């Protein structure tokens, strides 16, 4: 049967960062020139790498970068290609920290991002209405330690938050993000309407079934 699909539709879109074609034979200085990076920024990176006990980096040529098994070389190549945040000293320090062996092991088995609305809070706990399943319209009330909400300004009832839960055997991490751009509050209106209907029905049931002489 004929199809409108072409070979192009089966081809995955390649998202590789720009890389100089003569990479294999370039020195570090040439490499940086090929990817159009400022020479001052390159010096900054080389001096920072030196400070972190990597004296050898100052003499690195491109052949040292050919193995992706070295996380620091991967970091350096990523930065050369990305050219983002290169002026920030904090940026490279955080990136180098990322590639220390402790952080390398931080691979999460499961990550879920739950849209939530705050329903109550006190000094110890924050209670949230969490959208567990969007299609099934399944909501759950969950409580979290209030400390994880300390980064949320103006904590209040009905405030939307995005709760990111990352887990792996033996470990769990909870990140709470201000949900103003990430939570669809209209989804929680549906739940509110249902709860109101449910309460009305319950009250009506009590009236109907209460015995006369009770």
């Amino acid at each position, binding site marked *: *049967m004929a*199809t*409108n*699909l072409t070979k192009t*539709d*089966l081809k*995955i*879109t390649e*998202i590789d*960062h*720009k890389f100089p074609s003569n990479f294999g034979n370039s020195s570090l200085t040439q490499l940086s020139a090929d990817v159009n990076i400022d020479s001052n920024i390159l010096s900054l990176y080389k001096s920072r790498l030196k400070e972190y006990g990597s004296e050898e980096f100052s003499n690195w040529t491109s052949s040292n970068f050919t193995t*992706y*098994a070295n*996380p620091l070389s*991967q970091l350096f190549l990523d930065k050369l*290609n*990305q050219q*983002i*945040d290169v002026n920030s000293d904090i940026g490279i320090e955080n990136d180098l920290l*990322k590639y220390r062996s402790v952080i*390398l*092991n*931080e*691979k*999460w*088995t*499961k*990550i*879920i*991002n*739950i*849209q939530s609305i705050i329903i109550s809070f006190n000094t110890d706990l924050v209670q949230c209405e969490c*959208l*567990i*399943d*969007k*299609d*099934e319209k399944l909501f759950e009330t969950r409580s979290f330690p209030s400390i994880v909400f300390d980064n949320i300004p103006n904590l209040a009832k009905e405030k939307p938050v*995005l709760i990111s839960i*990352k887990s792996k055997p033996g470990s769990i991490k909870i990140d709470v*993000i201000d949900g103003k*751009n*990430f939570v669809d509050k209209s989804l929680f209106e549906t739940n509110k309407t249902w709860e109101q209907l449910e309460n009305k029905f319950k009250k009506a049931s009590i009236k109907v079934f209460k015995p006369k002489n009770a």
Partner: protein
Amino acid sequence: MAIIETFHQFEIRFTPILNFQTSSRKIIAPYLSRTNSINIEWENTFKQRITLNFDNDAYSITFLWDRILFQTSVGIINLKNSNSIIEEPFFAIFSKIVNLEEFGQVINCLFFTVTANINIVYDNNRFKNDFLSDDLESILPFTDSDITLDQLINEDIIKLNFGPYIGIEDLQKRGIKYSIDQQNELSAEGGILADLKIVKVLNSISFKNYQFIFEESNSVLEKIWQRI
């Protein structure tokens, strides 16, 4: 034996949005607070490509004028679950793109996954015995092999390639990305490498479609693993 999903890419293709380089910024801007870095290529042209890198969670989302992509090199088993990173933020961002006034329609989607079933005792000879019934060596005494199966139903295509896994060079020579964290496991030789593409033609798409395609891909791969 270890089954490692080395790479996964999910693309939604739609009719080109001519002013995407400007109209997309409002959609993408809020997500910068959640990313580690951003790549912008061909800025302010129709070819503009913006990639949000969520390094801590090992995935990235890329935007072009006619498609949005999700890429990851870590295990994908949980991506089909509710509230996974495919549902939030990938489909959440896509639903904002759909709500743009300039948005036309969805054309199709591509689900691509590369999986290595590592088994050091499973070599080329065992692959021949399990999958190649004819004596093909009379044609050519081959040292490596690869089987390609295509299925066409209506306008949807499933394309499956699988063959013996000879080590990490198998991924490197094909330019398949993998996570540095998995390098040690992937260095073992033996087993089967499978890459699977599923293209679905649809007018609209939701997370439910993704879940369905995910199950379909699992079912295809399971049939290979059951034979070894």
